[in-house]
């Protein structure tokens, strides 16, 4: 099925309006808000702190623990059942794996760094917004990092490759494939790539190129948000 014009009038490679803010949760060690379109993610970082239960401890380095939570009222569709789910467990795992390559936790053996990602309002692309917010919050917490992670979901809607899908597009009747991607902007290396649907090899290549370009734009916004907190 042909997809000639995007449902919200954007260009095919254009992301939704993006906003980032650092230091939104007062009592956290580091925090950030990241918004793309109607999707809002708020991340709060606590730690490094002692890890309980102690059998999870790693005596070589600290561990990262993410907690993704879509609030019950956050969607435009049916209410999300509160509490952990199969889906949120998966997202916790991929977020940890996306963020760990830039973190150096060898200074803090036997500890945990907790990242809580709350989503008060969602319209697709939540794990990417969550990763962007979490990366900012980790930097705000003063942790040693090699880079900041930038993330976006690209995908195929109908016959077109597009960036930053909305929920409406994900549910496009001509079929849609969502590909969340996270990169380390300095080196353009991938730290997250998920794909669940149908795309050809060439389409995937095109989508990844688009993702890298969009992530560079997101990175600029992230850097600006971090510098803004300290008045520069």
């Amino acid at each position, binding site marked *: 099925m042909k997809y000639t014009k995007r449902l919200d009038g954007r260009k095919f490679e254009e992301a939704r309006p993006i906003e980032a803010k650092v230091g939104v949760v007062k009592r956290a*060690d*580091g925090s950030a808000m990241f918004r793309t379109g109607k999707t809002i993610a708020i991340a709060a970082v606590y*730690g*490094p*702190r*002692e890890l309980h239960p102690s059998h999870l401890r790693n005596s070589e380095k*600290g561990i990262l623990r993410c907690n993704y939570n879509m609030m019950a009222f956050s969607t435009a569709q049916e209410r999300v059942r509160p509490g952990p789910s199969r889906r949120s467990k998966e997202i916790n795992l991929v977020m940890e794996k996306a963020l760990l390559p*830039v973190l*150096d936790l060898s200074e*803090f*053996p*036997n*500890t945990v760094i907790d990242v809580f990602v709350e989503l008060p309002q969602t319209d697709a692309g939540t794990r990417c917004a969550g990763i962007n917010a979490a990366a900012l919050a980790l*930097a*705000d*917490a*003063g*942790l*040693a*990092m*090699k*880079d*900041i992670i930038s993330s976006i979901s690209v995908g195929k809607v109908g016959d077109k490759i597009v960036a930053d899908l909305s929920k409406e597009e994900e549910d496009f009747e001509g079929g849609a494939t969502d590909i969340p991607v996270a990169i*380390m*902007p*300095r080196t353009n290396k991938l730290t997250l790539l998920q794909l669940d649907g149908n795309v050809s090899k060439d389409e995937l290549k095109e989508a990844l190129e688009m993702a890298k370009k969009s992530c560079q734009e997101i990175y600029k916004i992230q*850097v600006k948000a*971090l*510098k803004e907190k*300290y*008045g*520069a």
Partner: protein
Amino acid sequence: MTLVAQDKSIVVPGEVLATGMDHVPAQGTFRENENIIASQLGLLSVNGRLIKVIALSGRYIPKVGDMVIGKITYISFSNWSVNIGYAYEANLSLKEATSDFIARGADLSQYFDYGDVVTAKVIGVNKQKAIDLTMKGPGLRKLKGGRIIKVTPSKVPRLIGKQGSMISIVKEATNCKIIVGQNGLVWMQGDDPEKVRLAEETILKIDREAHKEGLTDEISKFLKERLK
């Protein structure tokens, strides 16, 4: 060959600070091939060939000789555990806590109980992250009464000022007793609650505006105006 970022500017992790082999990476930075890159959010400081990033946020990291304020969190048979705001609890042993004679099996909570706040000095930090404290020394004691506020540990040097210039301005103007721990906890006590409140406000203002130049003058002006 050259410096890419500006000296005294705010840099973010992953930002390229300098290229070429002319500079040397110090605290808060690392080298990757030709480039020197920031590994922390903070203020860039270039000192000759040395490039470092002064952290603006983050937890306290203990150093030997630091005077800290901590809270007793656990009492065991021969020592106390003290929370000093680090990722690990610090250890205050019986021997370092008091010079009194303590009989075997005595109730240690009569010296320091759960929740008591003490000033102590860091005497040991080892690879296993065991922090040893002592309370033998001038001014190291249990803190009674007063109140405690928190500032960013990396801004404590600014709060104290050169030879204590900044904090003595606040002490004099507000007539409060103030103790600043290197771990970012500030204890204060005064007779006039209004003045204690002003001291708190001033300290939080210093914490917020620590990166500004000429802050000492601004603070004394601020205090003078508020005390009119």
